[in-house]
């Protein structure tokens, strides 16, 4: 599956922009992506707008008035933290089915408060589904099963900030020590404040097109969409996967949704995990960076925290993970964060990542995970 080309990417730096309208934030990313693709909005035949937290009807149509009205279909897409992956899959299907040749995909969000409360009304009244606790219970179980410690999770945050510091699109650009992370207050034991991503504002955009259009617009460094997979919960679901569930079967052991999406993506791309040379995983908090690396088959279960200690996931290591600093540094505007990962992989594959550039990667992977068992894996190839 290499008939779909990622022609251009653009990002508005993630951060806090209280005075700035979401449309203006999105337009910066869109303009950058169109320019990167040597295209104008007139070349686009379909647009997808991802948002999770903004409640503006037909937000995509409103935003695109700012780049000219051409009469194309525009859809708003919502898939929690996996929104970017969902849109890319839809764009790919539109192109590979032959229904159109060029799609503009963009995500935009503005943060609306620290925690998301994501259960049924009675659960929310009891404070049982504030998102940090669901992620922290996975972290606790990871410690129990594999012997990882809070210090290992702190080490993930330290690595993230080592590279996030070098990323002009990141919100937090300072380094931390392990001690500083461990001294930051607990949010949900065993995870500290500096282990978590912070909700913030931002936008990212990607132009996806057919090979024919890529040639027409002289895309000099084409990157191909080798796989794009979205998956939802299978039965049985794992007990701990963050979701609104309060009752889950234990009669059979469930397969995490990221495992399912990853396996399907490798198959689609005709490669294995060993062929991946740079990765952006969903690091909602430090523990899930490790969990997702393992769920993607990039190492054995329980091995990731050892490899982290050895430097394997550094930008100079065998398998650089989250050279962007991840959302631990960029912050998370959920409608845009998945495409933010794709921007980073594109820049890495094209050698445009500046001081955080990894060594000549040809194949990269982006992985998202959303509340209620939504997993997405995208594989890009030079």
């Amino acid at each position, binding site marked *: 599956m290499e008939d779909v080309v990622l022609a251009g990417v653009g990002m508005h730096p993630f951060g806090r922009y209280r005075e700035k309208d979401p449309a203006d934030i999105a337009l910066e990313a869109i303009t950058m992506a169109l320019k990167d693709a040597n295209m104008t909005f007139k070349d686009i035949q379909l647009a997808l707008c991802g948002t999770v937290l903004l409640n503006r009807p037909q937000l995509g149509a409103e935003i695109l008035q700012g780049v000219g009205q051409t009469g194309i279909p525009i859809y708003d897409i919502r898939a929690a933290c996996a929104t970017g992956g969902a849109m890319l899959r839809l764009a790919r299907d539109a192109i590979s089915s032959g229904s159109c040749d060029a799609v503009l995909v963009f995500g935009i969000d503005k943060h609306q*408060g*620290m*925690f998301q*409360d994501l259960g049924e*009304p*009675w*659960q*929310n*009244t*009891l*404070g*049982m*589904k*504030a998102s*940090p*606790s669901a992620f*922290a*219970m*996975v*972290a*606790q*179980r990871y410690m*129990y099963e594999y012997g990882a410690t809070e210090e290992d999770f702190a080490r993930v945050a330290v690595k993230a900030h080592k590279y996030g510091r070098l990323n002009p699109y990141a919100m937090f650009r300072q380094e931390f020590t392990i001690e500083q992370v461990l001294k930051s*207050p*607990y*949010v*949900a*034991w*065993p995870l500290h404040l500096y282990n978590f991503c912070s909700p913030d504002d931002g936008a990212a955009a990607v132009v996806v097109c057919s090979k024919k259009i890529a040639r027409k617009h002289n895309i000099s460094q084409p990157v191909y969409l080798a796989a794009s997979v979205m998956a939802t919960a299978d*039965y049985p679901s794992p*007990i*701990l996967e963050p979701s609104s*569930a*309060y*009752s*889950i*079967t*234990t*009669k059979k052991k469930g397969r995490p949704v990221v495992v399912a999406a990853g396996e399907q993506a490798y198959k689609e791309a005709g490669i294995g995990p060993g062929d991946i040379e740079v990765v952006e995983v969903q690091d909602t908090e430090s523990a899930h960076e490790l969990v997702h690396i393992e769920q993607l088959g990039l190492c054995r279960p329980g091995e990731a925290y050892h490899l982290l200690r050895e430097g394997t996931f550094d930008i100079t290591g065998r398998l650089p993970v989250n050279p962007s600093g991840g959302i631990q540094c960029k912050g998370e505007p959920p409608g845009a964060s998945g495409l933010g990962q794709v921007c980073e992989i594109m820049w890495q594959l094209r050698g445009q990542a500046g001081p955080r550039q990894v060594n000549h990667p040809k194949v990269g992977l982006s992985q998202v995970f959303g509340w209620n068992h939504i997993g997405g894996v995208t594989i890009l190839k030079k």
Partner: protein
Amino acid sequence: MSKSTAEKQVPIKEGMIKLPASPKEQPSLLGSKCRSCGETYFIRRSRCEQCQSGDLEHIELSRRGKLYSYSIMYYPAPPPYKPSDPFVPYGLGWIELPEGLAVLSHLTENDPDKLRVGMEMELILDELEKDEMGNKVMYYKFRPVK
């Protein structure tokens, strides 16, 4: 808990807990079991999520289970949760029950050093608040078995 026993108790959600009719009785969690595929659920329901059968029997779940995983919330959840003043961190965990399911629950314990995976836990009820009728709104928690 309030000293008065005259006030009526009501569950926070219908079909969730069996309230003891007398002080001698033990509370339990209510559930359903699918007669068609055998799936068990916490909180009564009329349709099986897995096989879509409408043939379910009411069951009471075991009062004891094992702690599968846990966390302590150090920040209050957003509204409608009403934190105590001052806020006291609270424990949450998944409890594995012998009926073949795990249930998400508040824990009585908020010290992670006093919790461990696999420990025996037992059900208790607690009062959340009084509703507008003056009834005690009850919910469930699990506590470590001494």
